[in-house]
């Protein structure tokens, strides 16, 4: 199929090479009109997208999602870039693959895409090391997540998955995923030389927690004073949610956010 400038197309993305090859075999055998981009993606006319996805899924082959092929892609020779894109030689054994589970346009910016990828193993143990390597990341120990921005792209690492929002296109997404995979493997290999960052830069004391509390000694939490509450919280005997004024009053909204992050990071 040739791509015409004045027609609408969608790019259909597959989770990995195996599924991509199987899917394209299905399309060929069914005589479906499509343009091969790589083993991982094809372009189809916009009005055929759903039928094509359906036909593939009906053959028990997996599809991650699709997003619109833009005039911009036409102009900057998307197909050549896709063909030329080579994943870097696999460096490291810790994380072997990231499988694309979901791809869609960004809602706020239709010219960008967002995606979800799954790791082939749990990376929880390596997150604090990555937090040490990446500057400006926000690590959440309790939820085991790490969030950071790579230029304009928003990246969330969880224990078993990654989400990326505002990637330019699928080639950009593949590149970012490959870079992150390499980063995770490199960090794992060098972990004995890296001081893990558990985001406890501040050694938190009861007095510091007290500083974020309303300091009204309202006793709603059952403690006599806010300082007593802070001490109990640090020991894990009180929960942040029991501080009603902090949770409910809008004037403490900022303090609430900080305390929520703090307690999550501390796991209390």
């Amino acid at each position: 199929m040739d791509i015409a400038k004045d027609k609408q197309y969608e790019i259909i993305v597959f989770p990995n090479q195996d599924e991509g090859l199987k899917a394209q075999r299905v399309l060929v055998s069914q005589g479906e009109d499509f343009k091969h981009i790589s083993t991982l993606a094809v372009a189809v006319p916009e009005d055929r997208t759903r039928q094509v996805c359906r036909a593939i899924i009906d053959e028990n082959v997996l599809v991650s999602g699709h997003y619109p092929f833009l005039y911009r892609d036409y102009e900057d020779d998307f197909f050549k870039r896709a063909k030329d894109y080579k994943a870097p030689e696999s460096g490291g054994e810790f994380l072997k693959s990231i499988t694309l589970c979901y791809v869609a346009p960004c809602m706020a910016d239709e010219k960008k895409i967002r995606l979800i990828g799954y790791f082939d193993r749990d990376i929880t143990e390596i997150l604090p090391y990555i937090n040490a390597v990446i500057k400006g990341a926000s690590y959440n120990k309790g939820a085991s997540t790490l969030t950071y921005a790579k230029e304009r792209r928003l990246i969330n690492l969880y224990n078993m998955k990654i989400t990326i929002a505002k990637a330019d296109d699928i080639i950009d997404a593949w590149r970012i995923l490959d870079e992150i995979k390499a980063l995770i493997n490199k960090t794992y290999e060098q972990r004995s030389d890296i001081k893990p960052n558990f985001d406890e830069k501040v050694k938190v004391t009861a007095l510091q927690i007290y500083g974020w509390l309303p300091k009204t000694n309202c006793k709603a939490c059952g403690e006599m004073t806010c300082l007593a509450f802070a001490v109990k919280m640090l020991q894990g005997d009180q929960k942040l949610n029991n501080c009603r004024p902090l949770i409910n009053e809008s004037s403490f909204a900022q303090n609430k956010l900080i305390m929520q992050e703090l307690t999550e990071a501390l796991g209390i």
Partner: protein
Amino acid sequence: MEKSVYLDYAATTPVAPEVVEAMAPYFTDIYGNASSPHHIGRKARVALEAARGKVAEYLASSPEEIIFTGGGTESNNFAILGVAYALKEKGNHIIASSIEHHSVLEPLKFLEKQGFRVTLVPVDHNGLVDPHDVEKAITPETILVSIMHANNEIGTIEPIKDIAEVAHKHGVYVHTDAVQTFCHLAFAVCGLGIDLLSFSAHKFFGPKGVGGLYVRNGTLLEPFLRGGGQERGLRASTHNVAGIVGMAKAVELRSQKIIKESNREILLRDRFISGIMKRIDGVTLNGHPVQRLPNNINISIAGVDAEALVFQLDTMGIACSAGSACTSGSFEPSHVLLALGFSAQSAAEAVRFSLGTQTMDLDIDYCLEVLPQAVKNIRVIRK
């Protein structure tokens, strides 16, 4: 024919053919401006007031207590800003729940920037607001309590009557966002005891872009749109006569069969929920098990991202929603599910199916048949 099952009625509904038919003349024949005194305008005026009567009949209110607006978001903005500005000399404190729709939360944020204080009361793990929490939050400065009648994501129905009672004990106005319940549940405004109530036509088989705000007689309210003096000067703008006529027709059609239809939906809903639980492991129902909208199913499937599932189901011809339509645009976890105590990760696994008049047993059968496959696909990708 290709299978297509629409299970996103909470996002919007198809316009009933009778509604389209009722609206049609008001585009071409009875095109007058309802504010014009001549015979062509008067015809539109008559239709407008008849429509007001029909809406009032459903709510068991007086016709003059109904103000027509451009939809649910406008009605919520109107109620909150209207009361806040009208009563700002009396007080500056407003109470709402932490699971309100964005069209309530955003105007509240806007008011906070202008010196108002807002308290968001928490909800329990089922999404229920405790009227005691509302009472505890009331201060002498409180001017408004705004709690939704039922939540759009998880379907939990709030104890509005009890909340209104405690608020009124302290002389505080009560607004409820009834967008999800209007013409879906049978109720009368006097039964709820509220002062203001928002509704939107496209949620009950009426057209988009039209809705209303019930304002109890005597409630102080600052005008929302200033101009030509329509809607008692509270909401200026040439009347959307066709839209309003369509909404009234939708109310009329719907109110005749609310009980019958909701009983039918409850049966379908519960069969769907138990069917999913039987066929798929790791399923939890989000929201209140009983006190929920007849047409709402919100479930989390462990290890299955809702957005990926919505895509798989879409290719199989099933239209449903991850979180709510307004938040499904980003990877931001739903504020509703977070308020229920979900982690960001588990909030991303919540998917909503909402049923409607055209949902039949066969549709539920089809969903139950293909859902396990869709879930398996995603779980296979994960491995």
